[in-house]
């Protein structure tokens, strides 16, 4: 394990850890997704690079690149889809949010709280 691959692996894992911290600490869903989707692509990117360097094998390298490209494409699309759906579902924005230009188009539905804390008291069953 040479220095470069170790470094890459560690930074990759660090970014993944950051992503995890992000989704726990951030106040609302959208900020969590913002912080996690970037860290995720960087995180996996670095780890994949680290692996490619460590293995130094063309097959591995190409597949690592394929993985990185995949992530660069899928992460934003997934984040976008989820963000949009969450917004349409009335997932609340953090109160510090200043402007909401999207309120104009009637996408935002009333917060349907099946699973929200405010949902009716479902029980263990």
């Amino acid at each position, binding site marked *: 394990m040479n220095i470069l691959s170790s470094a890459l692996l560690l930074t990759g894992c660090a970014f993944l850890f950051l992503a995890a911290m992000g989704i726990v600490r951030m106040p609302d869903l959208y900020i969590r997704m913002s912080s996690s989707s970037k860290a995720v692509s960087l995180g996996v990117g670095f780890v994949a690079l680290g692996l490619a360097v460590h293995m130094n094998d063309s097959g591995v390298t190409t597949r690592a690149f394929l993985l990185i490209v995949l992530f660069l494409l899928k992460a934003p699309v997934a984040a976008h889809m989820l963000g949009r759906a969450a917004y349409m579902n009335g997932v609340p924005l953090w109160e510090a949010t200043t402007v909401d230009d999207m309120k104009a188009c009637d996408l935002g539905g009333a917060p349907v709280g*099946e*699973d929200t804390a405010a*949902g009716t008291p*479902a*029980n263990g*069953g």
Partner: protein
Amino acid sequence: MTHTRARSRAPAAFTALPLGMLALFVWLAATGGGTRVVGLPFGAEALGFALSFRLDGLSILFGMLISAIGVLVYVYAASYLAGRDDQARFFGWLSLFMLAMIGIVTAENLIALFIFWELTSLASWFLIGMDHERSEARGAALQALLVTAGGGLAMLAGFVMLGSMAGSFELSAIQQQGDAIRAHAHYLPVLLLVAAGAFTKSAQVPFHFWLPSAMEAPAPVSAYLHSATMVKAGVFLLARLLSVLGGTPQWVALLGVAGAVTMITGAVLAVLASDIKKILAYSTVSALGSLVLLIGIGSPAAVYAAVVFLFAHALYKAALFMAGGIIDHETGVRDVERLSGLRRSMPLTAAAAILGALSLVSFGPVLSFAGKEMVVLAVAGVGAGWSTLLQGLVYTTSMLLATAAALVVFRPLFGPPDPSVRGHDPSPAMWLPPLLLGASGVVLGLIPYGITRVLLAPAAAAIHPGASRLHVSLWHGVNLPLIMAAVATAAGVVLFLTRSAWRRAAGALAAISRFGPEAAWNALLRGAVSYAGWQTRVLQNGYLRSYLLFIIVTMVLLVVTAAGDGIRFRFAINDTQFHEIFFSAVIVAGALVAVRSRSRLGSVAALGAVGYSVALLYILFSAPDLAMTQFLIETLTVILFVLVIYRLPRYAILTPPAERRRDIALCALTGVVIAGLVLAAAHEAADPSLARFYGANSLEKAHGRNIVNVILVDFRALDTLGEITVVGVAAIGVLALLRLRPTAAGRRS
């Protein structure tokens, strides 16, 4: 029960069968002598069953009786049932009965005997139930079937035990080992079981109640099955096994008591009844009782008496039933108190009835008189104090039977003609058979020598070798039995004349029948049905949870008791790394979240996490194919869950806490048990030759480096063939479930 009197051509075809049988037995009797065993190449050797027949004096006597009376019954029935659309069905069952009855009396192999025995019960069920639209007929038929079949099952057990004791079901083999069997530890149970079969068939108390209710059957059936033949099957069986099971104190006591009690009970009930067929039925019960008593005594005299009495009884009782049938058929009335003065309008039927009644009284120039005498002599021969009691019982019975005879004959025929009850003699086919039977009682009584030498003596000898030296004669000179018979008959007539006094008082006696055996039997059945209802409600209660509990508890109990102490564990934590334990913990934690989560989607997401962690474990322990498939399947499962669950309601039901604690405890225990098993199994060193073989041949023979995939598509391709079928069928199932809905109109569920 009047029927249109359409003249139907007598179905001659059917009568051919009894005639043929009669011819056969006449030929057999003629060429008689000794015991001939004829085996047919049929049966199941491994089961010890062979269709072999024994033709000796006893079987020929019964065969003759069955076929002779059979001919007369067929002729009688042809016109009795004229105009009914189910005649063919009737004669079908009657023929099945006759052949089966002949089968019983000629069977050499106990299993063959049992087969014929059950067939007679089956035929009797259908014959009693001919008028199956009437619920009374159905009830009577079912009762008869169940009582006799129930007894039959016990008898089967007896036969099987007897067969295993003797090493064969062949009577000849069994009869040779009489002493060994009598001394065998299982002698008493065998006796009781065989007796159960005989007593139910031959309507001994307390199993007698089915016979009177079997009178729902048409007259020919009552005349044939429930007097002359079928009910005698039990007596025949006991006679047949006398040499094997007889002679022991238990035999004598069991048959003696049962016979005596049945004899007297039958007689008493006969005089209390007013329906002509019921009276005759009870008198038959009494006759069967005396026959069982005689077989119980088992002395040569008793055996001979039984043979003579049995033969005589078959003739006159069939005659009386046929006569009774004609009266019922013509006038539609069966109550003796309302019948009166029919001798003028139905002279020939009256003649038959009188002859029959005479034999029923068994006093005067009739064969049954000789039989009665021999019964008295046999009973007298019994040692110790018993003979006086038994003689007393015999005379009381003959007194009561005399009264019964009077009831049946005197008022209906000799009373003043009653304009409201009209009737006249039917066609000769109906009155000739009873007349012949009645007359034969007298003729054979006067000159018994022919019948004795040809039939009765050989039959008695077949039952008990010592019986062959005796002889039958009408006239033994004026001796005590003669005087006593006269006194009994007279007393019977007196009793008849004073019947109006005691019959009303005796009506109260009928009330006790509520506690009689029939009531007990019905209570038993009702009890069984209600218990069945309760048990099914408790076990099959419809709650899926209770079914699951049954399974889990059974599994845990069985596994724990089976494991006992024969299990060893070995705990080894040292070889694990942190992240492996961590992901295992994630699996358990994920499952816990899925269990406790309030929201369905929360549970599904947690389930997804569990699935992913399991896949990670597969990665960590070198199973790439597995992990890949698990990731794919887990995601598709989560997607399916989402698509389906989204329409289901939220969790709304809370099971009571006590129940939840119980479930938690039970499931925890199950988890411990399974974990224990896995640990113990891991402790056993297993032979890795499969893995070695696959490793060696995967590339060279199967052209593949990925051993797991090679196993799936080559080494164990049959598994995969089945597996893809499962997936294919599941998919069709999903399509069918979603697309095929019950059309509101089309479907009556």
